[in-house]
Structures are given as structure tokens and as C-alpha cells.
């Protein structure tokens, strides 16, 4: 992996030009308008406090304290993962019998899952062979969002929905149990409320919910007035303003100015409140799943691709916006180092990915290395955008069910998801004979037809990898 060099000049001093220092007030810092001496003097402590209290949210802590102790046990989540594999295997078996000759000679018991996967690879391979010339998506070429896919599927799983509903009827929702249930996917009908709970935004205690939501939504409005409606930081705003219109250029929903302004406010306020990272291109894509899930809740059963947002009441729109903001904030907490200076969190994870693949799939690793493909070149975007650029939106939403249900945040798990994603394409990658072919494939992996079941397989694979390697850094490390 190529290591990067931060912007040091020859004397080892950080050059001052590119990394601008923010000119504007930062939450938690003494307000610029208050004079230095005033701030320091004891008599004006209250003034000081008033100038920095925008860094705190009333109630941030009491919500977090509820989920601090909840951990999902490995045994349980493994069971869930196995269930996913089993159900997928069963559903796939039928398909395989009908249109693919199952290789029966070496197929027995535990190998079955692998065979199913191999067949899948073949199917994908042959299908894409026919259509790759026309269908291949290129970076920058807008992909259809196919929001309609959000409503289908899974819904049939009535018993699962019932379990969610039963669980959420309790006065205090057992978050542990909710996570176990959610890890393998959340039914559409209960997704919005479940995401709020899993993100730690909505209190587990039913009695406190109405009051908390009311307060947080009012807090958000206050933040909008304080930061967005006031004088804005030009650089941050400009970048967001450039990026929003080109997020999903072909989807009418996102071309409405109402929607674009909502995204702008969410991102701008998030950026101002997170000065260590600020807005980084790509974070805009991370708002979309929250936005869609809360929109779907407000407009159930509607075709969302063309949904005119003005059909909703102002209050409904405010709820979508505020809840998207708070859930995004909670969601990004565990991966903030992805977006700080030099994006060190991502660089670290890219290195881990490389080490991992080297250990578990040496032929693939060497194939990439021999053709000069560097992990940073393809996996940076995977990690920066949490695969939102690589898979359809409906799949991202399904993937986030699992991310939100990961006990210790998904920062670590994400690495294994990327590893599983890379390994998914290994056969096709091994067929590529040069750098160009490898890079073009890695930047445009054909996931157009992916559905929830692909994601269920992916996270199950990721879980297996994490289970085997996360706590055993020397496992399989034979060459050292």
C-alpha cells in the first residue's frame, strides 16, 4: 500500500495553505464575539458557559446510558448469522435445482453453503457476460435508484414482523433482543422506529419517547436557526451546495428543491458540530438511507421515486429532517475517524483489509499485487461511503439494519463486510489479466440486480470472518 505523506514541507512543518482553519464559531469553543479577557474572568463564567453550551444536547447522555451495557453475545449473533445462511440456502436450493445443475459429487452438509455461493458466482458471471457491455455502470453515471424495491420482499415475513411488534409493545424495549432480531433485517413496517431505537435516538422506555422526540426535534430547529439561518461558513456551505444536486441526478425525488434544502441543512449542521472532520464528500450519501426510511414512514405505500414532498405537511417534513439528522449523528459517531484529517480511520482500515486478505486469500492478494492494484485505490470509496456507491439503495438500507444492530458500533464490522465484498468477486477478479481490467471491475462491480438476500449473504460471510479473525490477530499468519 502506498503510504501517504501529510503536507509537511522540507522543515517538517505543516504547510499552512491547504488546510484552512475555520473562521467561524465552533460548538463548544468560546464564542468569538466574546472578548478574550471577559471569557477568562471569573465573574463572567456564566457568559462563558452560555457561549459554549451549544456543544451539548440535553438528554444526549441519558439516552446513551441506556444502551451502554447492552452487548450482543457472540453465540447469539452467530446463531442469527447461521439462520440467515440456512434460510438463504433453503431459498436458493429451489432456484438452483430448477436452472442450475447442482454439483452433487462433493456437496455434503457443511460445504453446501459454499456451493450455493459458487453457483451464484457462476450465474452472476454468465449473466453479466451477456449484458456487461450495455449495463456496466461507470463512476459518475447515475444509477436508477429503484426505490420500489424497498417495499417488496421481507414484508411477507409476517412472523418476523409480529416478533418486532410484540417486542416494541413492552414498556421498556429490550434493546439486546431488538438487536438480535434486527441483525438479519428489519421489516419495512417497523424499520423507522427500530432504526431510531437502535441508533440510540429514541429511548427504550416508552413513557419517555414523546417528550424526548419533541425536545430533540425542537433542538434541531434551534440549531438550524443558530447556524444555518445565520451567517454561514462559506467553504463548508459551498462544498455541500455543490454536492447535493448531483447526488441522484436522475431521481425526481432528489431534484426537488425542498429535498435538497433539507439535505443541505442536515449536512451543514452536522459539519459545524463536528469541526474535527467537517463535511467530507460522500457523507451526503450517508443521509439518504435515513431520509428514505423516515420518508417511507410518512408516506407508506407510496411510490417514492417521484414523490412530491410538498404532499406532506410541514410538520411531517420537519420530523423527517430532524430525525435524519439525529440518527445520522449517532450513526457516524463510531466512524468519525474516517473523516478527520488525512482520513486516518480509513487508511488504517484499508491496511487492515490488505492484511486480512493476505492471510485468508493469498492467491487473490497476490493477483492484485502482481498487477499493481493497491487496496487504497478501490476500497477507499467502499469505506468512505459505506458501500453506498457500490450497491443499490435498497441494499444499503438492508445493510444498515445490520450495522445499526452491531453491538459495538459497526466500525470493526465494516472492515469485514468490505473483505467479504471483495472476496465475493474473487473468481471474476482472478480472470482479469491486467491492472486496467482489475480496476475497472473493482470500481464498477455489477450489483445492479442485488437484493436483500445478497446483503444477508454478505453480512453472514462478514460475520464468519470477524468471528474467525477479529480476536485472533495471529491466526493464519504463517509467513511471519
Amino acid at each position, binding site marked *: 500500500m502506498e503510504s501517504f505523506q501529510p503536507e509537511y514541507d522540507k522543515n517538517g512543518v505543516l504547510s499552512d495553505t491547504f488546510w484552512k482553519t475555520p473562521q467561524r464559531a465552533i460548538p463548544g469553543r468560546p464564542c468569538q464575539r466574546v472578548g478574550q479577557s471577559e471569557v477568562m474572568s471569573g465573574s463572567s463564567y456564566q457568559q462563558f458557559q452560555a457561549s459554549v453550551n451549544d456543544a451539548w444536547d440535553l438528554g444526549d447522555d441519558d439516552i446513551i446510558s441506556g444502551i451502554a451495557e447492552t452487548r450482543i453475545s457472540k453465540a447469539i449473533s452467530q446463531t442469527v448469522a447461521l439462520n440467515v445462511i440456512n434460510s438463504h440456502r433453503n431459498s436458493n436450493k429451489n432456484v438452483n435445482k430448477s436452472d442450475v445443475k447442482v454439483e452433487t459429487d462433493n456437496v455434503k452438509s457443511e460445504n453446501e453453503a459454499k456451493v450455493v455461493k459458487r453457483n451464484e458466482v457462476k450465474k452472476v458471471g454468465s449473466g453479466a457476460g451477456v449484458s456487461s457491455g450495455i449495463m456496466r455502470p461507470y463512476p459518475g453515471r447515475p444509477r436508477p435508484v429503484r426505490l420500489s424495491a424497498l417495499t417488496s420482499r421481507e414484508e411477507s415475513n409476517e412472523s418476523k414482523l409480529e416478533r418486532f411488534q410484540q417486542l416494541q409493545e413492552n414498556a421498556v424495549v429490550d434493546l439486546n433482543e431488538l438487536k438480535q432480531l434486527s441483525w438479519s433485517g428489519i421489516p419495512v413496517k417497523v424499520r423507522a422506529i427500530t432504526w431510531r431505537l437502535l441508533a440510540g435516538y429514541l429511548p427504550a422506555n416508552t413513557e419517555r419517547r414523546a417528550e424526548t422526540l419533541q425536545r430533540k426535534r425542537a433542538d434541531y430547529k434551534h440549531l438550524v436557526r443558530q447556524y444555518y439561518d445565520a451567517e454561514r461558513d462559506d467553504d463548508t456551505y459551498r462544498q455541500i451546495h455543490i454536492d447535493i444536486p448531483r447526488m441522484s*441526478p436522475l431521481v425526481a425525488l432528489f431534484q426537488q428543491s425542498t429535498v435538497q434544502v433539507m439535505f443541505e441543512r442536515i449536512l451543514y449542521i452536522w459539519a459545524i458540530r463536528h469541526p474535527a472532520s*467537517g463535511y467530507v464528500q460522500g457523507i451526503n450519501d450517508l443521509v439518504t438511507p435515513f431520509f428514505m426510511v423516515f420518508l417511507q414512514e410518512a408516506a407508506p405505500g407510496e411510490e417514492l421515486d417521484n414523490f412530491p414532498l410538498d404532499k406532506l405537511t410541514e410538520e411531517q417534513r420537519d420530523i423527517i429532517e430532524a430525525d435524519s439528522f439525529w440518527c445520522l449523528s449517532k450513526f457516524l459517531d463510531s466512524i468519525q475517524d474516517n473523516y478527520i484529517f488525512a482520513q486516518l480511520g480509513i487508511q488504517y482500515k484499508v491496511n487492515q483489509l490488505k492484511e486480512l486478505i493476505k492471510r485468508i486469500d493469498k492467491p487473490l492478494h497476490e493477483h492484485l499485487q502482481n498487477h499493481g492494484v493497491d487496496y487504497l485505490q478501490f476500497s477507499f470509496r467502499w469505506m468512505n461511503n459505506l458501500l453506498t456507491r457500490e450497491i443499490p439503495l435498497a441494499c444499503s438500507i438492508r445493510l444498515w439494519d445490520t450495522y445499526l444492530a452491531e453491538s459495538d458500533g459497526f466500525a470493526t464490522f465494516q472492515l469485514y463486510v468490505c473483505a467479504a465484498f471483495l472476496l465475493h468477486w474473487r473468481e471474476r477478479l482472478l480472470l482479469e489479466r491486467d491492472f486496467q481490467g482489475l480496476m475497472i471491475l473493482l470500481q464498477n462491480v455489477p450489483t445492479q440486480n442485488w437484493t436483500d438476500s445478497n446483503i444477508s449473504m454478505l453480512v453472514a460471510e462478514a460475520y464468519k470472518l470477524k468471528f474467525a479473525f477479529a480476536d485472533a490477530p495471529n491466526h493464519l499468519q504463517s509467513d511471519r
Partner: protein
Amino acid sequence: MGTREDEYDYLFKVVLIGDSGVGKSSLLSRFTRNEFNLESKSTIGVEFATRSIEVDGKTIKAQIWDTAGQERYRAITSAYYRGAVGALLVYDIAKHLSYENVERWLRELRDHADQNILIMLVGNKSDLRHLRSIPTEEAKAFAEKNGLSFIETSALDSTNVEPAFQNILTEIYRIVSQKQMRDQPEGDVIRPDAEPADARPSQADSVRKQCCQ
């Protein structure tokens, strides 16, 4: 070697740099696929594309790296300048700030790229005549002063996109082939797996000096 259509005589690595939203990705998609989307998604990190052209009966394969414009990405993207023999430094003729920042981008190249890299200043969005804020002559003079070649393009209506890439690739080719004649060529083909930096134009510096005097 790969199949016939994969064959080429030279492989040159070129980077596309410049402020966010000036149209780097659009130039790339226009050149490599003859496509244009009015709004294409922001580039995350770097993205890669390739196209071959013919010069003097030789096939030149351009390996083009499109970089993210946002400052935050610079630590990542500057790693990709290594081995590049050409750079298209793009600004938006309707956005003055993107032109002001050209100096910063030049410094960025000086700090991270090969010192002999050929640089072409590209004023994109020339179709926005009514919104123009940088006169052609001003940019041209700036380019001459700094030893850069210069062209105005429009990825939207295709104006000059082909010539922009053709010119820089041809210029690189001339320098490299001159160098090969002088240095006793070891063979015509630069293998795909060879570091593209092997094609580094060592005379670029002197050529540049000639043109700016």
C-alpha cells in the same frame, strides 16, 4: 500480453486535478466514453479510466486518474501523482475561485508529482459564455508565464475535449520517443505491468523552458 485490442506501444499515466465541481469527471467521461451527464456524482478519492489513441501509427494508452476536488481528500489523492507524466489542471471559466486556486494546485504538483510532469491548464465549461468570469487571454498569459500549455474545453458540448487529451498525450509521446532514440530503445513496448513512470519525459523541463521564453 493480452489480446490484440489490449496491445499498445506506450502507457502514460495522467492525472486530472482541480477544484470540486469544475468538471474533471465530465471531461474524463467525455473523453473515454463520449458520455456526458449534467450532474455526475462527486468523485470519492480517485477513480480510474483508460483510453487509447493513435499517434504516428503508435498506440498510446492513457491511464487517467480522476481525483476528488475537495481539500480533505488531498492527502489521499496526492499519493496518485506519483508516476504521472501528465496533469490536466482544470478550472471552471465561470467560477473565479476555481481559477484563483490554480496556483495552489501547481504547488501541490510541485510537492508531490515528478518534477518533469507535463501540465496543461484547462478552462472547462466554455459553453457558459454568458457566465464567463476569466477572460481567455488572462488564463493564456498565466499559462505561458508558468510554462503550462493551455486550452479551453466544454465537456457538455464536446468542444476541445478530444484535442486537450490528444495534445498532452502527443506532447508526452514526442518527449518520450526522442528520449528513446537518444537512449537506445530497449523495445517499443512498455509492458502493462511496468510502472508507467518509466515513460517519464526527462526532457520536459527543457521543452517547457523553450515555450515560455
